[in-house]
């Protein structure tokens, strides 16, 4: 097995799902439309906060082709969905709390009838005072989003402390202070939320959903609608992107409700792009106040950080996202005295939820910008201050957890410093064309892996030898495009000595696959991969033993799995897997094993508010270099260089790592320079793809990815999760690069041409 640990997947081979996706053959949830399927759609509030004073569905019901119109009165169960905190109505009965809140569910025979039915739902509101600023929401006189709730608009609050930050700051030679802000962000998955549901006469509810968490969805639906979770079956085909936006119910409860009321009928719901903007979850906007103190020689002494997250009107995972943000607020640095306070406020803005980077994007921008401020104050180069304070293995992180052994953040920074984009930067800047100013920035990043303490980060893997002698692996963690299914096939093929073509992959299905946690938290390949490799080992041992009978070999350990069979190197004899499989009953052809991610053994005595998810044990580190060009006439900024160095354990497939890093960096670049929901009174003004601008291929450079030699002994084949770490760098690195280019000291994102032009005017009055 040790030799295997050093082998990646066969280099250059396309991932197993590539051809089907490139040819349009891959079936997504959106592609499934059974004959006679009805369509469901949602009437949404259209105001930020109000009481429903009249809801009349008679006209809508009378529309030809409308099958039913459902309201709160039709919802059994608690009518409350949510992952940890259950506070989000499936259908609003009395009160709406944001523009996208659902007030009625229309089911119709076709699109036109659905549109006419939705238009015919009559709803009248009494407008209520609303609150759109999370800090204002926490003031005593703010309108209450949930009036009966103890604690008012303060959804969650937490504190992480180490040492005595206040005293230490008072004694620092230098202290810088800044207020930093990051905006809400839409995931813009190619495939919007959608799904399909049917209640069978047996009472079993079957669903096909574009979801990151099919196993957990059952409980969320069951709780909201008063159902038995064991009577719900969910399939999750490949997703056309998720990024966190499909972690938690989107269409699930609404579809299930429609299915309950129309037994025996297939019902489909597919959000449009506009509806996804309106009703889908968003990355939390956040405001962060930081004071960072150091000795005159640059040694970091203390940080105090207060983070305030805009949760929107429902909890979703806001508290958990805040937790992770707080845990990363000290950066990958050695800081003895730390005080990080977090608050999440209910507002009448769109609902905050999971998004790649999960609170860390916000924290990383703030702490990296504070490091830049400190470097400037000390007259130090930004990269040297980071290197000086880079957290080393065994040292305690800002929140008091010992860093695991492995390649560290200093190595990531040093690799970037040795790269031609860095060593050649002065010449590159001097070669700027007319009216162009160039700048380069370099920041350090980190991202925790897994759920953290308190919530078992588990997966169970099932592997079947088919009667034909091939293998079928049951993936329990949805592949939203990140390539985990392909990685699982490659891992299993390698572990079983078979070509990838001999390993089929069943996508998550709660009726066929054993349970696993969600596709999230940079955990997917690590946790499920470990479970899968255990199942593969059991399977391989079983096959050697059974083959030993056929080969009359009394030392099965000398047998090896070779393509299509088991061979005895001593005799050259071979028994085909198809023959072996024929002798096994089905139970015997299946191996199931599981894995739970190890947790921090002696957690620090802080962050006590966080029963779930604090602290994390494993971190992936990286550095991000961005080279930008700012146009002197227009203030337009182009990201023209981007390098990511990472320490993410061993590399199993280089292409897989590069795709994740480049995709994450592109999303980070969007946050840095383009994406803006333009909220006004809780309404998204940029609510479609002609106004909400994500970067196109012309707006992004080729992204250089450099994974460093590393090994995580607990990981499958030595890997660590790395699906998120690439998103953090572009924001602060672009900001630093723009300071280098035009002297702009950006404290918030996105950085617009207007702000850059204003900075240029100061340079050339």
């Amino acid at each position, binding site marked *: 097995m040790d030799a295997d640990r050093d082998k990646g997947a066969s280099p250059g081979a396309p991932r197993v799902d590539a051809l089907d996706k490139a040819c349009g053959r891959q079936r997504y949830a959106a592609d499934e439309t059974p004959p006679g399927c009805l369509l469901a759609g949602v009437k949404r509030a259209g105001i930020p906060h109000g009481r429903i004073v009249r809801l009349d569905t008679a006209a809508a019901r009378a529309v030809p082709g409308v099958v039913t119109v459902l309201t709160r009165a039709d919802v059994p169960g608690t009518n409350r969905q949510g992952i940890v905190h259950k506070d989000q109505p499936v259908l609003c009965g009395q009160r709406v709390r944001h523009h996208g809140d659902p007030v009625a569910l229309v089911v119709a025979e076709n699109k*036109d009838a659905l*549109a006419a039915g939705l238009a015919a739902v009559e709803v009248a509101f009494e407008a209520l005072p609303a609150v759109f600023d999370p800090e204002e929401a926490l003031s005593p006189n703010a309108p209450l989003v949930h009036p009966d709730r103890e604690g008012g608009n303060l959804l969650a609050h937490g504190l992480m402390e180490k040492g005595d930050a206040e005293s230490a700051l008072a004694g620092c030679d230098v202290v810088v202070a800044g207020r930093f802000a990051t905006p809400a962000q839409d995931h813009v998955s190619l495939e919007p939320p959608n799904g399909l549901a049917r209640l069978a006469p047996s009472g079993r509810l079957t669903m096909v959903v574009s979801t990151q968490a099919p196993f957990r969805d059952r409980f969320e639906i069951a709780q909201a609608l008063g159902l038995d979770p064991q009577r719900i079956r969910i399939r999750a085909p490949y997703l056309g992107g998720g990024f966190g936006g499909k972690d938690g119910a989107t269409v699930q409860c609404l579809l299930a409700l429609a299915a309950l009321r129309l037994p025996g009928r297939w019902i489909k719901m597919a959000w449009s792009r506009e509806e996804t903007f309106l009703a889908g979850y968003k990355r939390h906007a956040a405001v962060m106040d930081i004071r960072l103190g150091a000795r005159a020689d640059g040694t970091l002494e203390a940080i105090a950080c207060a983070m305030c997250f805009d949760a929107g009107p429902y909890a979703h995972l806001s508290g958990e996202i805040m937790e992770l943000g707080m845990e990363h607020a000290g950066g990958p640095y050695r800081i003895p005295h730390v005080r990080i306070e977090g608050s999440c406020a209910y507002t009448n803005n769109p609902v905050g939820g999971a998004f790649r980077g999960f609170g860390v994007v916000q924290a990383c921008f703030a702490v990296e910008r504070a490091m830049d401020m400190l470097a400037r104050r000390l007259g130090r180069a930004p990269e040297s201050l980071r290197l000086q304070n880079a957290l080393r293995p065994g040292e305690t992180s800002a929140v008091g957890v010992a860093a695991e052994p492995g390649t560290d953040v200093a190595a990531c920074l040093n690799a970037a410093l040795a790269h031609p984009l860095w060593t050649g930067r002065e010449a590159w800047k001097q070669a700027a064309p*007319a*009216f162009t100013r160039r700048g380069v920035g370099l920041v350090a990043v980190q991202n925790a892996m897994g759920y953290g303490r308190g919530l078992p980060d588990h997966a169970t893997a099932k592997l079947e030898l088919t009667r034909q002698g091939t293998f079928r692996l049951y993936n329990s963690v949805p592949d939203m495009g990140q390539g985990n299914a392909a990685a699982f096939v490659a891992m299993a093929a390698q572990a079983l000595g078979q070509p990838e073509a001999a390993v089929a992959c069943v996508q998550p299905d709660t009726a066929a696959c054993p349970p696993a946690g969600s596709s999230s938290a940079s955990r997917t390949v690590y946790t499920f991969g470990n479970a899968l490799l255990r199942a593969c080992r059991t399977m391989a041992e079983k096959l050697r033993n059974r083959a030993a009978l056929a080969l009359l070999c009394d030392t099965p350990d000398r047998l090896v799995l070779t393509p299509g069979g088991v061979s005895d190197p001593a005799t050259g004899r071979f028994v085909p897997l198809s023959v072996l499989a024929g002798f096994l009953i089905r139970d015997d052809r299946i191996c199931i094993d599981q894995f739970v991610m190890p947790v921090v053994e002696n957690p620090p005595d802080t962050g006590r508010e966080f029963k779930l998810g604090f602290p994390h044990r494993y971190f992936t580190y990286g550095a991000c270099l961005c080279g930008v060009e700012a146009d*002197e*006439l*227009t*203030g*337009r900024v*182009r990201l023209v260089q981007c390098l990511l160095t990472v320490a993410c354990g061993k590399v199993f497939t280089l292409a897989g790592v590069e795709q994740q890093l480049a995709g994450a960096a592109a999303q980070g670049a969007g946050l840095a320079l*383009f994406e*803006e929901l*333009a909220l006004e009174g809780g309404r998204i*003004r*940029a609510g479609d793809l*002609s*106004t909400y*601008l994500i*970067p*196109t*291929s*012309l*707006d992004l450079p080729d992204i250089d990815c450099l994974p460093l030699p590393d090994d995580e002994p607990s990981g499958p084949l030595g890997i660590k999760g790395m699906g998120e770490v690439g998103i953090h760098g572009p924001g602060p690195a672009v900001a630093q690069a723009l300071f280098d280019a035009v002297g702009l000291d950006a404290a918030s994102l996105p950085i617009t*041409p*207007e702000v850059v*032009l204003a900075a240029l*005017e100061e340079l050339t009055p």
Partner: protein
Amino acid sequence: MLDDGLSPMAGGTDLLVPGRKAAGRGVALLEGLPGLDGVAMTAQGLRLGALASLAALERHPVIRERLPVLAQAIACLGSPLIRNMGTMGGNLVTASPAGDTLPALLVLEAVVELASRDGRRHLPVAEFLLGPGRTALGPGEIVAAVRIALPPPGASQHFEKVGRRDALAIAVASLAALIVRDEAGRVVEARLAVGSLAPTARRCPSAEAALPGRRLDREALLEAGRRIRDEISPKGDLRATAAYRREMAGRLPLRLLTLA
């Protein structure tokens, strides 16, 4: 068909977008009508058929060679997919203040050929564009072609679109320029037009008047820029504020310093 209230469609990349919300809008496809397609050389210059796709125009050797301001404008319009479907006539009739080809057509002093069952008439582009989405098209009339006289071979042509990204962007501002200089480098004739800075794409006569007799130096171009600021009436929208547009519009002519 036009009498029945159908909208003539020449590509549909703009026309069909609102259709997602207003279902059932009828369109009359102009494809197949004779004389609306292709590029023809005439004694007076080029005749660009209204249905010529933007991609075809972008590739056309004479346009690339003699009308680079138009080729550059088309190259930054939408995306390759939109340029494959979108047409010259469609971009004109949409009459967006941000229409990418319009400033280029203005400095080329292009003439719109309008056709109806009553015959044909010709209007300069500046007279064809009346306001946002409003044109001088009469009832039952369509755009048949755009006629452009070839500018003198030595004329410098320039187009810049300022968008929030490099593809699929609606212009925040744009500047088209056509400059004729004498052998000493002094401006003989200057034509400047802007987009996204007024209710229609428009020429800037006062700024143009600042240049003849001068070299294209920083001072002259800054003066032209100041005059552009006085000639425009930018609005703020999601893409940019009015103040930013005004400030930036005055700087854009400086790019002409990079003209060969």
